[in-house]
């Protein structure tokens, strides 16, 4: 029906958009951060439970387009159990992938976002949750906005 869009709306993305994983508030979170995309009105809040340097649990709530919701959902599956350093590396890989389409190293199922680079207006949708994750890990009190830095 919209076959020419399959590079953007891959099956995995549609699935996570319709059925987001780890979509819940976390009352006993170690830290949390809000992400906001003022262009779309997308809002999400990401919660983390840390065990030393390692992410023991992660969840999110919020609303947004299919790309941003699926990105947050897949993020939660990807980073659970990882260390700060591992997450930082993945963030760099994701950023590179959604802006250039290049996949460096093993990004697992996050590779479904490689097609986003062909849709410049949607890059911010795909990266919003990752900014919120970085803000939560860095303990920033301020909500992060996709308009506050070059991404």
């Amino acid at each position, binding site marked *: *029906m*919209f076959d*020419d*869009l399959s590079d*953007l*709306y891959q099956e995995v993305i*549609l699935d996570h*958009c*319709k059925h987001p994983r780890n979509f819940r508030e976390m009352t006993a979170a170690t830290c949390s951060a809000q992400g906001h995309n003022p*262009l*779309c*009105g*997308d*809002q999400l809040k990401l919660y983390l439970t840390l065990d030393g340097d390692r992410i023991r649990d992660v969840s999110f709530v919020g*609303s*947004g*387009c*299919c*790309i941003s919701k699926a990105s947050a959902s897949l993020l939660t599956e990807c980073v659970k159990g990882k260390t700060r350093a591992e997450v930082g590396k993945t963030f760099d890989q994701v950023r590179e992938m959604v802006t250039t389409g290049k996949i460096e190293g093993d990004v697992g199922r996050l590779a479904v976002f490689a097609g986003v680079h062909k*849709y410049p*207006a*949607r890059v911010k*949708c795909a990266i919003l949750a990752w900014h919120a994750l970085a803000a939560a890990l860095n303990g920033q009190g301020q909500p992060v906005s996709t308009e506050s830095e070059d991404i």
Partner: protein
Amino acid sequence: MMTASTVNRLPGKEIDWAALRADFPILDQKVNGHPLVYFDNAATSQKPRAVINALDHYYERDNANVHRGIHELSNRATAGFEGARARAAAFLNARAAEEIVFTRGTTEGINLVAAAWGNRHIKAGDVILLTEMEHHSNLVPWQLLAERTGAKLAFLPITGDIGQLDLNRVDEFLTRDVKLLAMVHISNSLGTINPVSELCDRARKLGITTLVDAAQSVGHRPLDVQEIGCDFLAFSGHKMCGPTGIGVLYGRGEVLERMPPYQGGGEMILSVEYQRSTWKQPPHRFEAGTPDIAGAIGLHAAMDYLDGIGRENIARHDMELGAHAYATLAGLQGIRLFGPHVGRAGIVSFLVKDIHAHDVVELANRRGIALRGGHHCTQPLMRKLGVESTSRASFYFYNTTDEIDGFAEVIRDIMKFFGR
């Protein structure tokens, strides 16, 4: 500058709207393999060849700086620029060309009033009355003025998703402290047509200065500033077939004369000494620096083009398209529509089930349809409606009901794609 094609369709004749599309070169193209359907006219309209030709002609034959020139080209440029001013005065039925200030657009026009008129007339405790449906351009300049002066903002409320002003509550808001009523004529988010003549009349009886944001109305219906009775009216050229970068602020002569300059520089002065200057009478007092000469000349061509079709005819067609789109979308399951059921302009905002507006717009784009999704520069209104964003289809006279029917099919496909 009447073009040959417009002379044949003066008001009174049945207009072949689809044939008018031939005047717009940009419409004849495919986007993503589908014929372009341009439904983003509230953001900017397309330009007819008559306007593009006027710009070309100016730059190829007449370009020079205006005023104070002695040479031939400067005379031509000045005549073109001031001719556009006289044309704009006639277009709005202003009393004099001196009531027409050229600006970069609606936003600059409103900022000009907020700075030049507002700084002089607004004091701490005064109330600036707006509506809940204002575009950010008719909200943020007043917030800045309120911050500078200690004035307060108040908002005429709207009635839910129907998005009409609650006229029963106007008296409650038109208090003695209100010094300015600034309101949008046609809402860019809702398609609501506000009764600006009635509201200006009620405000004027209380000595309240009035401003109308006519960005969405001026190219879509006949508009008469004397009939409306406003003190200020601002619009942009690019939403009415003209170029970007040019707009008009109408100001009632008596009000403009009492206003200090907006910006300082060349063009606006009478004489300059090292320590002080004196300035010209309106409108030149408010036009510092070299103006957008080509833009004004292009706007002149746009006004001629629209009047060649007849703004009454455009208004009728606009409302037919708006009503058709509203009824068609209302016939689909799971569509939430915003704005009035009847008597609406050709702007229709909607939500498709729980599918985000950007996903709707992305998929429509794959079928060649240009929609807009987002908050439409009306974030407080979106919050009031309890939504983050909407999708919006906005029409102009070159759009057709066939395009709207095709668009409705695409909306059905989008619902299927997302399995909703």
